[in-house]
């Protein structure tokens, strides 16, 4: 299972604050209910959306197919060195 707990916690806490803590502090007034529903729905949908993207990439079943030029460029700019072996 390829995952790291840090992003899961960060995002769950972030959207948890938005969706569970903030509605408690919604300003009193005729629109209190509306604000609470808005916050809860935003948090739920955005968290689920992020979670699907995260989980779809946890255990990838295929990998990207790249041209060798792109691969060389990626290795130079994204900082992962390729082995410099000669045949």
């Amino acid at each position, binding site marked *: *299972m*390829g*995952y*790291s707990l840090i*992003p899961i916690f960060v995002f769950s806490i972030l959207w948890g604050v938005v969706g569970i803590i903030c509605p408690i502090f919604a300003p009193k007034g*005729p*629109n*209190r*209910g*509306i604000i*609470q*529903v*808005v916050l809860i*729905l*935003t948090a739920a*949908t*955005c968290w*689920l*959306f*992020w979670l*699907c*993207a*995260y*989980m*779809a*990439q*946890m*255990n*990838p*079943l*295929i*990998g*990207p*197919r*790249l*041209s*060798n030029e*792109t*691969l*060389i460029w*990626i*290795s130079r700019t*994204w900082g*992962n060195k*390729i*082995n*410099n*072996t*000669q*045949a």
Partner: protein
Amino acid sequence: MGAMFRSEEMALCQLFIQPEAAYTSVSELGEAGSVQFRDLNPDVNAFQRKFVNEVRRCDEMERKLRYIEAEVHKDGVHIPAVKEAPRAPNPREIIDLEAHLEKTENEILELSHNAVNLKQNYLELTELRHVLEKTEAFFTAQEEIGMDSLTKSLISDETGQQAATRGRLGFVAGVVQRERVPAFERMLWRISRGNVFLRRAELDKPLEDPATGNEIYKTVFVAFFQGEQLKSRIKKVCTGFHASLYPCPPSNTERQDMVKGVRTRLEDLNMVLNQTRDHRQRVLASVAKELTSWTIMVRKMKAIYHTLNLFNMDVTKKCLIGECWVPTADLPNVQKALADGSNACGSSIPSFLNCIETDEEPPTFNRTNKFTRGFQNLIDAYGVASYRECNPALYTIITFPFLFAVMFGDLGHGCIMAMFGGWMVVKEVSLAAKKSNNEIWNIFFAGRYIILLMGCFSMYTGLVYNDIFSKSLNIFGSSWHIPYDNHTLAENGALTLDPKDAYTEVPYFIGIDPIWQSADNKIIFLNSYKMKLSIIFGVIHMIFGVCMSVVNYNFFKRRYSIFLEFLPQIVFLALLFLYMVFMMFFKWIAYSTKNDELAYTQGCAPSVLILFINMMLFSKNVPEEGCKEFMFDAQSDIQRVFVFIALLCIPVMLLGKPLYLLATKKNNPKPEHSNGSVNQGIELQEQTDLGDVQPKPEAKSSGGHDHEDEPFSEIMIHQAIHTIEYVLSTISHTASYLRLWALSLAHAELSEVLWNMVLTFGLKDHNYVGAIKLYVAFCFWALFTLAILVMMEGLSAFLHTLRLHWVEFMSKFYAGLGYIFQPFCFKTILEQEENKDD
């Protein structure tokens, strides 16, 4: 309950108003804008109603105001806008206003009439002057010709001779329009058989036509002829061509005198004309200041009298009775308005309000503010909610922009949309003040909050999809690294990274890994991801919709429906489609390239769709070597159980409610129906204050079918249709949610094509020419981005999101059979009148 959770409670009220206080009370009610009046005289002709004369008076005043306004516009006087709408005038003020309007109208009419006369005179004098001046030339020429043969010393003889010669030649002088001159000439030639001599001179400056104010070019002509018969013929031709003839004295001295006289008269006339113009300007300027407020006052008056026509006159009690729907929360306001009306009139007998019970369905009223109004309009466009039904607009505030964003997901385009929406919201006061006629702008402006939210959510989904103008951001470092060495790279043109070697164990922090943007097989990965995403959100949205029906059943006290309709529906949906969603999540977790067990590696990962189809059809799939057919043990048993329970739900949906109703109808007697009706002369109830208000109209008969009255066959047929619709819709609507995938794919592809085909053209050269190329390419790229990707794709995604809400979400619980509350409110009436004017 929260503000928009369901529509507000309404009460049917009877108003008893004294006739003398009626006008002021209705005026106060119009300012408050909380009541919707019902017509108590539906079969009375419009011309036989009580206040028809007053309405006629208002119409007459409106006509006068329109005339005055037209005159003010003609002179270009500026009409200042009024800041606060004035109240409707009381009866004494009405009489004053009428008199004032009459006086002003007559004054303006008189001024216009006089101005026309004066201008006519001016025109004639001007033409006469031109004729005299131009014919000067003709006659002096004539005299010269005549003088050729005679010596100048013999003046006395010459004059006599010339008089004799000139006496034989008659002439008429006049002015004709320049366009008609050729035809005029030809006609004169024809009627005189060539015996008429026409000399003409064109006038350089055009003359103003007094009636229309148009400037016309004219020509002065002198026609010389012999004989009286020809003279009459020529005169007839001149009348035919609308040429004005002027008496021109033959002798020079007389002409000079005449010219002088005409000049002085012209100067006097000019002075008078200027004074008239100034007077007119002053009158119009003074009127223009009051014009808007008068117009508003007259419109309010007319509205009040139309409303008073809806009332019923009670002969015995000598008061006016009206019926209206009022939101229960606004009853104190209405009471106050009635009290104010009575006080304003100084009436001793107060008017009062009496709430009555009724079985009729009240109108649906949702109190909205500028933010929620847009979303409420989206829902109302499909159908107004039934009375006190659950309002889907509350959830639409977020689900609509979110589903739009799933289809639109691009950080750059979302940013553009959010900025556009943000600009409209920040400047909304100044933008609303300029009332525009452009329909498209009005629609965009009315939806500014929707656009802002759509833009913001699109920025979030763009961040997760990692797509900004078809490029990806690499903020946190990619999770894929290159495991190959120089030699492998040199030998192979393209390589596929195997997750076993190239994938670090941790997925990208937010969203899709940036390496996929450069991959050739990006679509294969994204398709799988986005399709699963669409189904997940679709099933959750539909379950949410079905759960909303519980709230409705609970409120309308149809608890049996919870067990006989909601329960089988949710079980059917969940056991089949929520199970499919579970399978998707399970596959994401269980199958990996790095598993030890062969059955759980990528070669053996089963297709969720095939598993689902096999589950429904009870068929088997022979797995490959070493792979397992199912994802976990006992899956086949669980699936069988699920499908059986789901199939069992169908007859419960079909027969449960009708059988229950049949059983209960036999047991319970029919409940009594009471209608609150307005009877003339019934004894008034004692309750007049708010504390004893009768309970709201019975909720049981509203918000759905009245089952007690329907025969069993009707109920059965309805339920059968409902069941078939629901069962089929579970599969069709689930598939319909795949449009979330389809549109986001189309958007991403369009964006990529635009970049690769348009912008790269400008990015390839690295010299100065390249700079110019980039400038041009960027112009086209930006244009197409805005027109195609933001506007067209935006509208398309908006439409599809709307469809998803209306059909897939709301068909699960929404009845939408209500009618909207249209209160008697001066603000809306004035706005409507203004829109009609424009």
